């Protein structure tokens, strides 16, 4: 578990350091994800000198409990009840409508472009 955790944290540290050093408006953990992906792909290119189980185990454990990790941020609602109470109607409408619009637009564009491109390959 410790080698896997060390690798995951090192990737995040690399991402955060890169963001701070360059001033790119990008999230450090996302760059860390790209770094870990490149390492896993690089391991393939080198005919897999490493068994990647040491990192996939901890990664799967983290992802299996993803929803739990958002509880502390969610409890922060107790600190912002005044803002939510003042604008509850506008915020509720905006959040509900925009989430449904986001879901529908994304899924329709994905399926539409997917059909177009597979038809192009077949032709």
């Amino acid at each position, binding site marked *: 578990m410790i080698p896997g955790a060390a690798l995951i944290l090192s990737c995040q540290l690399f991402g955060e350091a890169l963001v701070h050093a360059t001033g790119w408006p990008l999230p450090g*953990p996302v760059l860390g*994800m790209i*770094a870990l992906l490149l390492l896993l792909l690089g391991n393939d290119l080198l005919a897999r000198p490493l068994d990647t189980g040491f990192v996939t185990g901890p990664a799967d454990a983290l992802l299996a409990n993803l929803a739990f990790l958002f*509880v502390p941020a969610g*409890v922060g609602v107790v*600190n912002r009840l005044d803002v939510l109470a003042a*604008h509850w109607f506008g*915020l509720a409408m905006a959040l509900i409508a925009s989430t449904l619009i986001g879901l529908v637009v994304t899924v329709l564009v994905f399926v539409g472009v997917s059909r177009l491109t597979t038809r192009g390959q077949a032709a």
Partner: protein
Amino acid sequence: MTDADFSLWVYLSRTPLLWLTVTLLAYLAADRISAALGRHPLANPMLIAVVIAAGVLFATGTPYRTYFEGAQFVHFLIGPATVALAVPLYRNRRTVLRAILPMGAALLAGSLAAMGSALLIADALGVPGPVLASLAPKSVTAGIAMGIAEGLGGDPALAAVLVILTGAIGAVTVTPLMNGMGMRDMRARGFAAGLAAHGLGTARAFHVDPVAGTFAGIAMALNALLSAILAPVVLRALL
């Protein structure tokens, strides 16, 4: 309470241990409740856990700052969990590569639609500017949305709350909505869930199907990248 009880409480309530334990126990209880309700989409374990933990804070008069000193150890793991998304991405790399065009198009359209419609509706209903700045990154995973909101002159803590509410709405609605639309492409369903509802949508997608979960994770990561770039532009263009 006697004086001895009170001093024990004062001691415990100031250590991270108490609030970390409360967070874990609240989630365990929430998960049991969700299971007892047959995993109904409305019985979201994260939402129930938030209600329980917030109830404990209210009942004990504990400030959120004190709570967060303990709970930050859980919150911190959102960053490593984002890095960990590389693993399902790697496992499904062939499926992902084949879907690169639909993903790019859906990312741009979905990200603009979610952010733009939220800002337009809230603005039309009289929500003021600083709150709109906190609303813009609402589909992005919490840690990153807080940074984006801060850069726009918004309130990071409010942004986190709006992000969680968005994630909860997405996690609750995505499965019935996609079934109702007759969508059977698990790649597209997952991608929509991760884009519109970040980690909570991704968690929901992993529950439904591993391929959906993988695409949700990719969408969440890509939308975090794109929103960091788009949010200042969209906010200025619309308001």
